[in-house]
């Protein structure tokens, strides 16, 4: 199975009502200022491809970002947008969504933005399950500030601020999102445009906080970070495409598979030594427990390939629905608030 034929999307098919909008309607007049060859371009293009498919009027879409190269995103989309302050996009988005739950709210952020200065907001947004879509563009470097290591840079990485190599372990976004009880947690990669587009679309269609880690390069400061992916010879051995309900296979012609040995995952050769497809782990992003998602999220080089696709996808009540339900219930119980009643509440007395 080729990587480019991957079938990741489990979301509903687009609405029968055909959206009249096209990709062009979502391109803004602002000149795009990323470095030529930056992974951001492909991601922007896929977002612009997906938006018309969603059947949402352009004026009801809001893109919110923080600070960093990726956070320039809102300027390049002809929707409503806020380019916020470093790390705070999920919190700004919470305000937007709670003020008007009918809006389609997106957060575009980066590894420095949401895994360093603003990690707090990311975690709390996920656990609240606000109905919004978070695209975390992870290039494992600080690009805008010109090349310092980021919280996702690999241990020992040499950068401008770590000439002798970093001395800190990286943070992994997918386990973090799972720990925060994310209801939609996925990983994709900029270099697979088809997978990227489908994953973004599935995220957009999920009700609740959708979290997508998008692995990308930074041509200027971290160009080869996805070398094993961009090299067609090595891709198959180093990357797994997760598919809901299917046994986990990878490698050339899917000859390798993932099985359990005791409590640990193990790479096996399918068809050799008595290993059959039934012995492989079957991917289930929708199980009652998120333990399988953790297991897959923990796969990392050099021992294991990296998994792509949807790790977790479950339905839970959203914060914004619950917020509005409480308001509706209060109105049903007490009647719509009348200001005069509120101001005259409690012990009052008349001065004549």
């Amino acid at each position: 199975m080729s990587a480019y034929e991957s079938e990741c999307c489990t979301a509903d098919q687009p609405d029968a009502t055909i959206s009249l909008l096209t990709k062009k309607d979502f391109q803004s007049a602002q000149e795009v200022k990323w470095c030529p060859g930056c992974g951001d371009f492909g991601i922007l293009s896929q977002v612009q491809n997906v938006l018309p498919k969603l059947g949402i009027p352009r004026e009801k879409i809001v893109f919110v970002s923080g600070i960093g190269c990726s956070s320039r995103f809102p300027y390049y989309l002809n929707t409503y947008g806020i380019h916020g302050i470093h790390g705070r996009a999920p919190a700004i988005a919470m305000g937007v969504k709670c003020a008007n739950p009918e809006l389609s709210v997106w957060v575009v952020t980066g590894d420095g933005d949401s895994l360093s200065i603003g990690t707090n907001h990311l975690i709390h947004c996920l656990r609240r399950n606000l109905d919004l879509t978070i695209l975390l563009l992870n290039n494992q470097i600080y690009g805008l500030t010109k090349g310092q290591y980021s919280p996702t840079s690999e241990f020992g990485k040499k950068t401008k601020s770590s000439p002798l190599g970093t001395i800190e372990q990286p943070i992994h976004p997918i386990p973090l999102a799972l720990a925060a009880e994310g209801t939609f947690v996925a990983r994709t990669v900029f270099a697979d445009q088809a997978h990227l587009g489908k994953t973004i679309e599935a995220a957009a269609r999920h009700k609740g906080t959708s979290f997508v880690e998008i692995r990308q390069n930074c041509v200027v400061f971290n160009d080869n970070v996805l070398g094993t992916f961009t090299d067609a010879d090595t891709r198959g051995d180093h990357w797994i495409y997760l598919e809901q309900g299917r046994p986990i296979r990878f490698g050339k012609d899917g000859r390798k598979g993932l099985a359990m040995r005791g409590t640990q995952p193990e790479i096996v050769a399918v068809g050799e030594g008595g290993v059959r497809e039934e012995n492989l782990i079957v991917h289930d992003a929708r199980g009652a427990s998120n333990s399988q998602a953790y297991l897959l999220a923990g796969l990392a080089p050099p021992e294991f390939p990296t998994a792509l696709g949807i790790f977790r996808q479950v339905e839970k009540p959203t914060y914004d629905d619950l917020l509005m339900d409480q308001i509706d219930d209060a109105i049903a119980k007490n009647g719509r608030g009348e200001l005069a009643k509120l101001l005259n509440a409690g012990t009052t007395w008349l001065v004549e």
Partner: protein
Amino acid sequence: MVQAKLAKEKEFVQVRSATVRFAGDSGDGMQLAGSQFADIASMTGTVVRTLTDFPSEIRAPAGSLGGVSGFQLSFGDEEVRTPGDEPYVLIAMNPAALKMNLAELQPGGIVIVNEDEFTPGNLAKAAYSSNPLETGDLSSFRVIPVSMTRLNEEAVRPMNLSRKDAARCKNFFALGMTLWLYDRPLQPMLEWLMDKFRKNKAIMAANGASLRAGYNFADTAELFRVQHTVATARLPKGRYRRVTGNEAAALGLIAAANRAGRALVYASYPITPASEILHELSKHKEYDVRTLQTEDEIAACVAAMGASFAGAIGATGTSGPGLSLKAEGLGLAVMTELPMVCINVQRAGPSTGMPTKTEQADLLMAVYGRHGECPMPVLAAATPADCFQMTFEAVRLAVKYMTPVMLLSDSFLSSSAEPWRVLAPEELPDLRIAELPAGEDFAPYRRDPKTLSRPWVVPGTPKREHRIGGLEKLDGAGTVSYDAANHQRMVNLRAEKIAGISRDIPPAEVTGAKEGDLLVIGWGSTYGAIAAAVDELLHAGRRVAHLHLRYLNPFPANLGEILSKYERILVPENNMGHLCSLLRDRFLVNALPLPKVDGRTFRIREIQEHVETLLGGLFR
């Protein structure tokens, strides 16, 4: 306040005002007793101002000094302007309460103590080496020891309550005695009990019995030589209620959102003493109040801004260190020119400081404390009820001028209460804004020529999709711009927009001499103490005046002219001289500071005496 005693009948003394403090262990129900007394005093025609003093520790051991909770009120005619410098009557439910409060009692004042609690154990917890009721240490006061625990137990015995429940009624015994002392009726209290405890008849009956027992005991045991009658106040006609500063701020936000025809989104992180605003607002969901308890102060600030972007009235509240954390978010709101309100209930700092104590030391931070050229309006409420008016005003200015607005309150205002004339919704300005005419070609930073504010066009509006953010914007078009001349122009425009608000706020007014020897200028919660002190000084024939600023940025347009009419300017503040510096800076006047940062607001006498000294020097 001086107790003007005029013997009218043998057993009555008439006074213009009285100050009473209820103090006890945090479990003794002193807040309830005090606030019920305040309600009755209000209903019987006096002006009442109250102040609660919560224990500094959350779960201090019973009987310890750290566990003492107090409720002070001053009531009387309309010249009662503060909860009182010094109580005339102290009700102390245990030795710790006596110890913590005695120092502030007026010499010659009355101390009613629950003598049953003066046990060796309780005395030790209050660090008394001997029983003060026996040593003569209290000889400068009139001490009335009452066996409250025992008398209360006897009164409630017929209701067969548990020991614990029975003991909890004794605050009503103390309340009954105090009501008798000030010749107040019992009936409203009994009615309140009937309503409050209608589901628990035994507790209702027990509290009523204890209340009556206290009242009758005071009457028959002849403990007090006299009863006091307190002058009533002449207040404008209308319906009144008592509000604390925090309640009033919450009501002001709801009222303003309602008059703006928008949802209120209040995002806040718990912090003393601002949390009550969040609590109060979260009770009123049927008014389309959406309260978000966020993960931190920064999130609260930017969520409020995000809510405003999406068309709600976005507001946040905080105190102390929380304000520091909001600085960056407020800067973004200044840059994006979005309306939002930040209520800062100041407390003693820096850092964690003294979270339950009052201070006004955030003024310079409010005016200047953001990076870059970052002007925003700063308002300050003068009294608890004024928190309603000024919160409403903060929303009005935010929406009209598309700017974040800082409203300063403080710990004193938050826990102090006063009568508030309930306004009818029609008395409040209509805050709805006219929509941009359809079809008019739109640019997010094209300004209204009069107010200089940009249009508030919210997501959901077709054909007006636009992007805003923290990067400098091109004048008019609102696209990102790094152009040098444009930045200068935008800095100027943002400054002019805020400065222009001085044309839209009431001119400053003085009370007292229109020109003269000394002008006392204050802002915020010092209002009552300054007003009362200046009143006294005017009665004494001094050529002084009081000016209280509720708008601190921009200042009222006529402020400079007023300042020029006085020989001297004195600025009492609960800080080391913030407003004083601002006045010197803006008007090159020789303003003199009167700083006080001991966690308490000014006493009337402190200001009065300071002015006398200053003027004495002038005339000598």
